[in-house]
């Protein structure tokens, strides 16, 4: 737990109580606020891709995981990417469960393949197909977008890219990257992942 330092009110002594007042442990309050906002966003996002009940379940499971395993994280820039990754995995798991349960197409129980717990061929194929689509789409971009993506993949930050590409302002780089991402997404059919329409 980290504590944020706050200015002590004027006129108070610098005793232990004062120190206790100065180090106001407000993290749980801020974390609760961040988690509450996250829950709201996750439910909305998951509901868009599935049912409302499933969305509630995804959000609940995600917050429980954050609370149990990642209780030390409190900043939004730490919690939000982690929650996004958890949500993605939860949604993918829900889809696979639905397929196994025959919610989309009823099949005989004898025809259902047993899951391989050591490896996931579905994930492998999905990643492979996504990479092929991404490689093909990148090849169709213009020279500026290709250069921008190349620099990004090399680990350069936006300020570094601004210097390399000779842009006058950082906003120019943001705009170029936004347009390139939009064009790349259009070339891939509007979705990064295959099979999503």
């Amino acid at each position, binding site marked *: 737990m980290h504590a944020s330092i706050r200015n002590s009110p004027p006129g108070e002594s610098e005793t232990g109580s004062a120190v206790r007042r100065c180090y106001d442990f407000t993290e749980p309050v801020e974390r609760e606020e*961040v988690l509450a*906002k*996250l829950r709201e*966003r996750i439910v*909305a*996002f998951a509901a*868009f891709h599935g049912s409302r009940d499933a969305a509630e379940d995804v959000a609940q499971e995600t917050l429980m995981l954050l609370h149990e395993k990642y209780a030390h994280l409190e*900043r*939004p*820039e730490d919690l*939000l*990417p982690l929650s*996004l*990754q958890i*949500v*993605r995995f939860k949604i993918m798991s829900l889809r696979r469960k639905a397929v196994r349960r025959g919610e989309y197409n009823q099949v005989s129980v004898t025809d259902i393949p047993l899951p391989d717990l050591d490896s996931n061929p579905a994930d492998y194929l999905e*990643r492979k197909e*996504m*990479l092929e689509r*991404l*490689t093909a789409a*990148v*090849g169709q971009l213009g*020279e500026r977008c*290709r250069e921008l*993506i*190349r620099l*990004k*993949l*090399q*680990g*350069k*930050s*936006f*300020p570094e*890219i601004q210097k390399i590409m000779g842009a006058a302002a950082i*906003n120019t780089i*943001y*705009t170029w*990257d*936004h347009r*390139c*991402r939009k064009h790349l997404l259009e070339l891939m059919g509007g*979705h*990064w*992942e295959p099979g999503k329409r």
Partner: protein
Amino acid sequence: MSRDQVRKMLGGYATGTLTEEERRALFETALEDQQLFDALAQEQSLRDLLRDPAVKAQLLAALGEAPATWRQRAARWMWGHAVGLAAVACFVTLCGYMARQVHFTPPRVVVVATQPTTVDVNGSLPPGPARPQRIFDLESVKKAAAHPPAMPMPPSFKPTSGPAPAFERAFVVGRPELPQSLAATALVRAGPVVAGQLGQARGGRGGGGGGPVGVAALVATPDVAVPAPVALLRAQAAGTTVSAAKGTAKIDPSLLALVQGMGSGEAPVRITLTDAPADALDQLRKAGFTIASQEGNELTGHIAVEKLDAVAQLAFVIRIAPQ
């Protein structure tokens, strides 16, 4: 940062390009903005993919192949088509050549040279195969120089008061100044009497053979058997018998050359007559002429070379020529 500006940072999320400040701004905004949150959630799959170093390397390799500009593409197109066009041109040329060889072969013209028409200008032509090769032999040249052959002395003319008497003595009065080894030279030409012309050729013209008369030179040594006409010619040259010279003038020069080549025997001749008397044929037969046929005033037959002189002496005989 404005919300729109923060939205533009979305592309940096998947690649991990954002700085701490940009991340904080983006995620704090995403907590308040559902659309941005959804967009970030959709970017998560790409982010998970790009976390793999192998995937990054593959994408960088794909991006390393810089797209060709329109000039490069045009150059590639031109070169590719140029090579193709060159190959097609070579193929068409080869096919055309083969077709021409098959269908348009011109007929062969065989030129048979009946006689060589080469002209030797200053000895520029190489020696022909028929020409014997002259081999320079130094020893034989030395021997020849040590024992030079006896050369005949040139004719010497005694100085006289004028050229005409000396010329007449040399050719009319039995060549007293000519050496014995020197062959007699006669000037023969169809027409008036040679001796008479020789007499007219005062001033030395007769020796050179110029003037209105052509020249045919006959050279003979005294020890060689000479046919009668040739002896007659020699006598004409000497000027001893003017009448004989008159008869020889009737003989065609070609017949004289033929007689010279034969030496002896009978020669086929054609005799032209004029103002022939009634017994002309008998006189010809008596002179030795064997008549084969007669056409007008021309008689054809053969006569011994030795008797040609007698026939030529007949007054009604004006010309004797080979058949």
